[in-house]
Every structure is written in C-alpha cells, then in structure tokens.
C-alpha cells in the first residue's frame, strides 16, 4: 500500500499544492493521520495556503540535521472535522533560507535523501502516521527527485498545455520509470469536462497518450480560481464536485486501484 505520496509535475502552475493539500485533507477527514511536507524550497507556499502560525523549526532544519522531525511538525488537526490528524511540515519562506537551500551540494542532497527515507521509520512506523504527502517543486530539481525516490507513489499533475504534455511524457519515460515508481496521472484544469461521454473519451485518449494509469481528471472550476489558493477546499466546501473528485482519488490510492 502506498504510504508516502509525492505530488510532482513538469511545469509550475499545474495545481500540485492545491492537490496535495486537499488530498491530505481528504484522508484526514476520513480519520487518517497525515502530514503534508513542502519540498518546494525555491518558492515555499504551504505556509501561506495553510495560514500557519510562525514556525520555530522548518523542514529545512530537519534536512540540515539541526532538529528532529517532531520539532518541525505543526499540528493543524483542529481545522479538520472528525478524529483525523492533519500535520504540516513547512519550507522556510525567508530569502536567506531560499538562498541557502539553492546552494547545497551533491553530498548535502545525498544526506537529505537519507533524512527523507528515515521518515518511513520515524513517522510511519513509530508515530503511526497513515500517509505522508510530499508537495514538490516542478521539473528536475534535487529536492523533487529526492522526494520521488523516497515515495511509494507519485501523483503527476499535468494540464492540456502542449509544453506541459511533452515534458510530462519525457519525465514519465526518463524519471519515474528509471526509479520504478508507481505513478497516477491527474489531468487538471480540464475545459468542457461536464459531459460524461466526453470525460470518458478524454480519459481513454490520455491513457493511450501517456501510457500510465489515470488517477483522475479535474475540471477547471472558477470557484478554485476565485479562492486564490486561500482555503482547504475539501474542508470548506464538502459538497463541491472538486471535493468529490478528490474523495474518488483518495479511495483509488487507499485501495491501490490506480488503473
């Protein structure tokens, strides 16, 4: 069963963070213990989306080996209805931290991979977390590839944009396949996906095009754009179609039925 899930894409703006946050929230709402990690060290955004209080320790500190993981976790469970647990581990958004993270060498990255791999023992085994979500930066960044290597399952967010399609295909062939990672494709911002027949036709075309299993298709919702990334959608609008689509994706991940 997939326990560590990385959300990745070739290009920016494909909806990785929105998907990660809301997928994690979907699992928490269903009573699971989850944690979302911001691995986009070049452009941290999770602190703003989750509107977290000031953090004393960041994911940067854990990867720098200056604190243990428990110090860097922020408990946001009170924001989710039910008994589930929702934690976040954030990337430091200060300019100094961004500069520091962009100047790391290969050896540091190797040790960072070791620290990410260790989360399986500390969080999944010892602290009994059900799922860890890695929200990554787009493209072939060290931090993203580290996250992909450490993950059990990679959610690949893509759009119909031509440059995104080509790049995603290349990444599927040259990155995820080489690391033998299970992947599920999410086609985001789909226009005119209201008709069921059209949806089925598009899903079949995408599956044939990319040669990977589809996790889901998300129509372009004006409400999401209007929200300006300012909410955990799954929590604020439980009856919205987006919430239902995410619940279907979560079920597929949980039951290992990404086909």
């Amino acid at each position, binding site marked *: 069963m997939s326990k560590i899930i990385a959300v990745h894409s070739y290009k920016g703006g494909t909806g990785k963070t929105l998907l990660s946050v809301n997928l994690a929230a979907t699992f928490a709402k269903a009573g699971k213990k989850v944690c979302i990690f911001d691995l986009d060290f070049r452009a941290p955004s999770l602190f703003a989306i989750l509107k977290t209080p000031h953090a004393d320790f960041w994911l940067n500190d854990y990867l720098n080996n200056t604190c243990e993981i428990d110090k860097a976790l922020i408990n946001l469970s009170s924001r989710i209805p039910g008994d589930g647990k929702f934690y976040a581990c954030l990337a430091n958004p200060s300019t100094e931290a961004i500069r520091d993270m962009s100047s790391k060498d*290969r*050896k540091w*990255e*190797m*040790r960072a*991979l*070791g620290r990410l*791999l260790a989360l399986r023992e500390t969080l999944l085994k010892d602290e009994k977390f059900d799922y860890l979500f890695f929200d990554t930066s787009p493209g072939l960044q*060290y931090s993203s*590839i*580290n996250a992909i*290597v450490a993950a059990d399952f990679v959610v690949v967010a893509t759009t119909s944009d031509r440059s995104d399609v080509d790049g995603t295909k290349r990444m599927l062939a040259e*990155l995820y396949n*080489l*690391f*033998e990672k299970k992947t599920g494709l999410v086609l985001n911002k789909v226009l005119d996906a209201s008709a069921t027949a059209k949806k089925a036709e598009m899903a079949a075309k995408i599956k044939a095009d990319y040669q990977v299993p589809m996790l889901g298709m998300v129509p372009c919702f004006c409400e999401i754009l209007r929200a300006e990334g300012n909410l955990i959608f799954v929590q604020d609008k439980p009856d919205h179609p987006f919430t239902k689509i995410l619940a279907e994706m979560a079920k597929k991940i949980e039951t290992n039925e990404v086909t």
Partner: protein
Amino acid sequence: MIRNDLSNKKPLNILEKIEESLERLNDKIEVMIELQKSGGGNVNNQKNSLALPDASLDVMTLLSMPDHLRKTAMAICRCSRATAEEIAEQTKRARAVESAYLNQLVIMGYLKKERKGRKAYFFIDKETQS
C-alpha cells in the same frame, strides 16, 4: 567433558573458517567478473579509473547509473546498511548477483564494506561524504 567440547567444536570452527575464506574468495571473483564485463583489465587500474574522489550516491548519480546498478544502489539507500542477502530480498535477484553489484559500487567509491564475522555489510559512508 572439556575434551568432548573441544572435539565437537574444533571441526566446526575449522569449517566456519573455510566457509568464511571461501566467501571472501567468492566476493573477489565476483568483483573480477564484473570488472571484466564492464571492459576493465587490471583491478587496481579499474579501481583508480572508476572511483571518484568525492563520489556521492545522490539522486542525479542514481539517474546516470546503468539500470542493474541503480536497482542495487536504491535498495542500499533505503537500508543504509545491509548484507548482499538483505539487498537480494528487496530486489528479488540472486544473492551472488547483488554481491557482485555491491562490490562494484564499493570499487566505484559509492559504498563502504565492512566484515563482521562471517557477514559482509555494505553501507553509504556519510562521515567521509560530509
């Protein structure tokens, strides 16, 4: 009683020593076979040409590796420290195959090897790579 113990243990000890020596020889032969496959001649020359001064097993290095070595290297990344048998359990390949690949990664400077009794442990040396 004591004589009995000695007479029981001695042949066993000798057999264990022989087995240990055979395993060492086996490891060496596997390395030589691997080096020959990858076009190497003299083991020492090969060691010098393949070993990087500061070889680190980071993800970009993993990406650039041939598929058979990447599989082994990723397994050791997950375990930190393991025997060829433990790696073989993960990769579902034969122990002898993993032993050869692990030894090749040692020669390339990505892993360290340590013997404890009859077992050989492979690990990423994070101390020297800091």
